[in-house]
């Protein structure tokens, strides 16, 4: 989850998010390079006493300031496309979960083997126990097996929502009448938080997402227990 005064991304919990972090570092480095150069040139232009009203063109500089940005854009585009195709690779998921957005909660359906479904409402602030996070905790978490490829099918029941978990590098719009697919694999066990990322009404800020990645045998015990309860 995010921490106070955080500027950068949350720590990555999936390989795709690690790649995105490194790509962001690479692109931000280029941004700093260009911004520093432009700032220096602006200051130099502002303080100069040289003026020439008769300069009309200069082929040399036009070539330089066309080629250089083109090269920089290629240096950004190549890693970007690599990650784009990496995210789309067929990864043979072990599990498929449907995440449905409602006003104002998420519901999860695990229908690969049995019919398991449950709603996930935010825990109101007054009901939190010590150690829980305000506006982030839910009564039922989406539990998945760690280090297993998982496919998520995201849709919505009413209005637009968006299923987002920053540390897994996932954001997928929940559109009524449409199934959007994304897949991920968690690199380590833990609890990962996200929030609805598409304005959906009064309680848009109060329908968080909690993903709990546990070892496979515990995931199986949990799903059996949930099936017995329902």
């Amino acid at each position, binding site marked *: 989850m995010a921490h106070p005064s955080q500027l950068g991304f949350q720590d*990555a919990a999936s390989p795709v998010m*690690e790649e995105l*972090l*490194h790509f962001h*570092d*690479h692109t*931000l*480095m*280029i941004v*700093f*390079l*260009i911004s*520093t*150069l432009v700032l*220096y*040139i602006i200051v*130099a232009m502002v303080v*100069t006493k*040289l003026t*020439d009203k008769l300069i009309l063109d200069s082929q040399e500089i036009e070539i330089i300031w066309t080629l250089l940005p083109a090269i920089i854009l290629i240096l950004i585009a190549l890693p970007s496309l690599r990650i784009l195709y990496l995210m789309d690779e067929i990864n043979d998921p072990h599990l498929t979960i449907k995440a449905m957005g409602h006003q104002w909660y998420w519901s999860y359906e695990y229908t690969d083997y049995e019919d398991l479904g449950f709603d996930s409402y935010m825990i109101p602030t007054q009901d939190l126990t010590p150690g829980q996070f305000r506006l982030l905790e839910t009564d039922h*978490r989406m*539990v998945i097996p*760690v*280090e297993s490829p998982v496919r998520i099918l995201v849709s919505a029941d009413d209005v637009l929502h968006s299923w987002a978990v920053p540390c897994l590098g996932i954001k997928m719009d929940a559109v009524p009448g449409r199934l959007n697919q994304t897949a991920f694999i968690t*690199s*380590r*066990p*833990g*609890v990962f938080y996200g929030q609805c990322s598409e304005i959906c009404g009064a309680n848009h800020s109060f329908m968080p997402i909690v993903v*709990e990645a*546990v*070892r496979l045998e*515990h*995931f199986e*015990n*949990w799903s059996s227990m949930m099936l017995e309860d329902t």
Partner: protein
Amino acid sequence: MSLQKPIMRGLLAKRLRFHLPIAFGIAITVALSYKFGVTEPRKKAYANFYKQYDAVKEFNAMREAGVFESVRPSGK
């Protein structure tokens, strides 16, 4: 006594010859500082973290701390 002829030409070129190398130098220095100060340490940090990462040990530690809701601590 004669005055030295003032320089009337090539003023912009002289200014550019002075400032452009400094501008590119500073910009490249900033970029390299970010690369070796932030990017490479971050890559190494992630590599080192997973090199010594024991998922079972960490999972058990989190379980005993009561982090998970699907798995209770082993005593309970």
